[in-house]
């Protein structure tokens, strides 16, 4: 018989851990921080794509991984989850995203005519397509609905940017958790971003791609000149100052097609910059030249649907390029891998988060191996953009991980849980997680036999006063929170109402933070 022990506390909130993490934010209400040590045992832990421990333990405390391996001892009092048969993976990272960052919309012009001068307020660059001062971190606001979709797909963090203009300022590295911007922002100013598209700028110049290229070149020159300018009679330019301030960061270029990528690379070479490129899925066509850019790539998994070409007249409209692309697009990640081009995979280009896994599996059917795939979603983006404490499950890193029912890339796999900074997000219940067991409910000096049946998502409980008298009891188990209420006598005036955390799967541990009222 297992035991379930409730220590009675008349006033909740008395047991506050001394190691409670501090924040600058006052709490409106009662603190309920979780300072427990979580131990995930008997799992297949994928520390990174190449390091896999069987029957291993992962220890998590206050948002961080404090131990991982096969010879890790579980500290006393840890909340133990037996993950036999299950896998733990580092949470995935999307290196190119707009998650949580509102994108500027094109504003109407005062008059329908051409705009020659900047409409931006403040002493910024002459052209409104230059926004080097823009900061995604400053605009970051968690979006609960979108975050949930991302977590479901396995993405625990994104590098988000304001995708507007030729110079777009800095991106921010954020978690896809609940909670405030402060809790989810991991790194502001991750990378400086560029494109050939003037975005929402109403200004006429530049109207062509060659104009965008010229503007980019001239701005590199202007910024260099401005940095050495020691003359107050000239100009003060906050745009160029911001530009100069972000040149040491990774530089990411969003170009619309392969030839544009090569053009961007050429501009980069002229000014000693090596861009990381947002790819477009056609890299396989010119893979040697792609390799020669020397850049890392962030590539989408947008694969075209087959064309409906049953009718020969319809078929006439399909270009050979389109036909070939349908066939070859899913081979693109493998082509990059074979050519030795470092690449990350992104959700960018997909309409829905749910399209990600089918697309990734399609790429894998076309030769992308699982090690490269996992690296492209974890360590590669972390390295190419300088993201810290993420991408692997090494000790000391943030506790951002996935618990999966199978190998992550297996078609039958289900992501069960997603943990971000040590906070659990249940994605799907493991079916048939049986909780059949006999317990004894102890409270004060009293003890009742307590029987649980069913599964964790549909539990049912029986409580007996003694061998013959059954008591009406309601039992709830949701998100690790246990609530029990019952009356000791059938017509008793009061009810016992208990609430607490489930400590471990088998209810062996003591439950804390209990309230009971007679």
């Amino acid at each position, binding site marked *: 018989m297992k035991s379930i022990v409730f220590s009675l506390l008349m006033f909740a909130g008395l047991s506050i851990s001394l190691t409670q993490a501090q924040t600058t934010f006052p709490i409106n209400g009662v603190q309920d921080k979780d300072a427990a040590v979580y131990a995930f045992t008997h799992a297949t832990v994928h520390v990174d794509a190449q390091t896999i421990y069987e029957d291993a333990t992962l220890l998590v405390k206050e948002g961080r991984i404090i131990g991982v391996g096969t010879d890790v001892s579980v500290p006393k009092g840890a909340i133990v989850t037996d993950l036999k048969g299950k896998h733990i993976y580092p949470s995935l990272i999307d290196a190119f995203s707009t998650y949580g960052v509102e994108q500027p919309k094109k504003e109407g012009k005062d*008059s*329908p*005519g*051409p705009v*020659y001068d900047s409409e931006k307020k403040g002493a910024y660059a002459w052209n409104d397509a230059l926004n080097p001062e823009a900061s995604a971190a400053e605009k970051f606001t968690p979006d609960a609905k979108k975050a949930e979709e991302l977590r479901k797909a396995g993405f625990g963090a994104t590098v988000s940017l304001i995708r507007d203009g030729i110079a777009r300022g800095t991106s921010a590295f954020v978690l896809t958790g609940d909670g405030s911007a402060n809790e989810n922002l991991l790194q502001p100013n991750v990378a400086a971003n560029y494109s*050939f598209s003037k975005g929402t700028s109403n200004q*006429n*110049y*530049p*109207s*062509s*791609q*060659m*104009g965008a*290229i*010229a503007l980019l*070149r*001239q701005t590199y*020159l*202007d910024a260099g*000149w401005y940095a*050495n*300018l*020691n*003359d107050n009679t000239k100009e003060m330019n906050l745009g160029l100052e911001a530009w100069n301030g972000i040149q040491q960061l990774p530089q990411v270029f969003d170009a619309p097609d392969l*030839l*544009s990528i*090569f*053009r961007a690379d*050429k501009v980069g070479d002229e000014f000693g910059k090596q861009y990381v490129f947002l790819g477009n899925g056609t890299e396989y066509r*010119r893979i040697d*030249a792609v390799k020669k850019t020397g850049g890392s790539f962030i590539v989408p998994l947008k694969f*075209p*649907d*087959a*064309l*409906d*070409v*049953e009718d020969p007249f*319809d*078929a006439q*409209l*399909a*270009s*050979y390029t*389109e*036909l*070939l692309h*349908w*066939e070859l697009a899913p081979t693109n990640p493998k082509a990059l891998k074979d050519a030795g081009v470092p690449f990350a995979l992104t959700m960018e280009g997909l309409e829905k988060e749910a399209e990600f896994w089918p697309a990734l599996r399609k790429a894998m059917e076309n030769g992308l191996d699982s090690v490269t795939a996992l690296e492209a979603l974890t360590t590669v983006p972390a390295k190419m953009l300088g993201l810290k404490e993420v991408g692997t499950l090494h000790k000391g890193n943030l506790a951002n991980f996935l618990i999966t029912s199978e190998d992550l890339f297996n078609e039958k796999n289900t992501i069960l849980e997603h943990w971000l900074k040590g906070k659990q997000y249940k994605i799907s219940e493991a079916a048939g997680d049986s909780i059949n067991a006999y317990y004894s409910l102890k409270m004060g000096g009293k003890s009742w036999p307590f029987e649980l049946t069913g599964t964790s998502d549909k539990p049912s409980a029986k409580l007996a006063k003694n061998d013959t008298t059954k008591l009406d009891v309601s039992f709830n188990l949701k998100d690790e929170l246990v609530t029990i209420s019952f009356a000791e006598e059938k017509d008793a005036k009061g009810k016992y109402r208990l609430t607490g955390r489930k400590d471990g799967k088998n209810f062996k541990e003591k439950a804390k933070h209990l309230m009971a009222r007679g």
Partner: protein
Amino acid sequence: MQMSISRTEIKPWQRPSVPSGVKEIDGTGKHVTSGIIDEHSHIAISKGVNEGTQSVTAEVSIGDVVNSEDINIYRQLAGGVTASQLLHGSANPIGGQSGIIKLRWGRLPEEMKIADAAGHIKFALGENVKQSNWGEYYTSRYPQTRMGVEQVFYDAFYRAKAYKAEWATYNGLAKKEKASATAPRRDLELETLVEILDSKRFVTCHSYVQQEINMLMHVADSMGFTLNTFTHILEGYKVADKMKEHGANGSTFSDWWAYKFEVNDAIPYNAALMHDAGVNVGINSDDAEMGRRLNQEAAKGVKYGGMSQEEAWKMVTLNPAKMLKMDGQTGSLKAGKDADVVVWSANPLSIYARAEQTYVDGILYYSIEKDAAAQEALNKDRNRIIQKMIAAKKGGAKTDKPSKKEHLLYHCDTMEN
């Protein structure tokens, strides 16, 4: 007659023996010429032929946006073209720099560009630059009149001269003074204009009406530079003597007119008349379709102006090569020049002539046989994928309806991209 082509260049005419190891091409009944050079083309350009948003945009370059995947490159190879000047459009008085390419189909943009080609740039006169037909809202950008156009040119070159002087002063400073001085700001627009003043960059100017042509030659003479080529130049016959005196070439159409008011005075004898006045004359396309049959356009010099066949043919080969400062490299079949060679089925001035083989740098980029084989292979592969798609649909795959693709062909005045 025999000649031999090495991998890259034409070797001296050798008679009578053919060196061993040489691939012999039977030229019986064929005509062999150097490749056609199109001095005014807008094929193979990505995402905008005009940066017409300011009146002076000398900082932009078509060379930055060469589109090596434009099918018109291949189609023009099939018309015997081997090199083209890709010009900026005519939306502003001082447009962008040119991209000068050989039609090395299948290569990347940087590989198509002629590495050591002289720099060129587009200027423009006429309706486009003063935004005559841009609608009622385009009334604020200077210039709006022909008088304003003249002032834009003067102003640009005054600024360029001041810029040149500023750098000269800075560069002339003693080491010590230089250390404490702020270097002038590098300005890509003015740098380009200084190149024109220094005869390191050459102007091709879009031009129709003779008064404006005279005006611009006067501007150039007084600012100390030469206008290399007037293009379109449909009223060139009126000012050919002055062009000759100034040192300008004329690159014109054979008989394309009646498309706007300022071409009303165009005549088909223009090319021959300019030629007779001693101007170096070329015939250009300005159009992806016309670029495929420039041999026929050259032939019209014979029809209308009574030019000799040789002089007419030079209008699409050696003469444009001279305009582009690359007649030492290509433009005729001469020992030491690039092996840009076309084998024609008949006299290329005949409308029955077809380009059967086109070589660029001695490499066969187009031949009728190769094309037929490639088309057959392509159709076979198309059919294979189509069958695969039909099978995928039957297997329950999601499908999209194929859609018609419109390809925008650029002309001088195209503002879209």
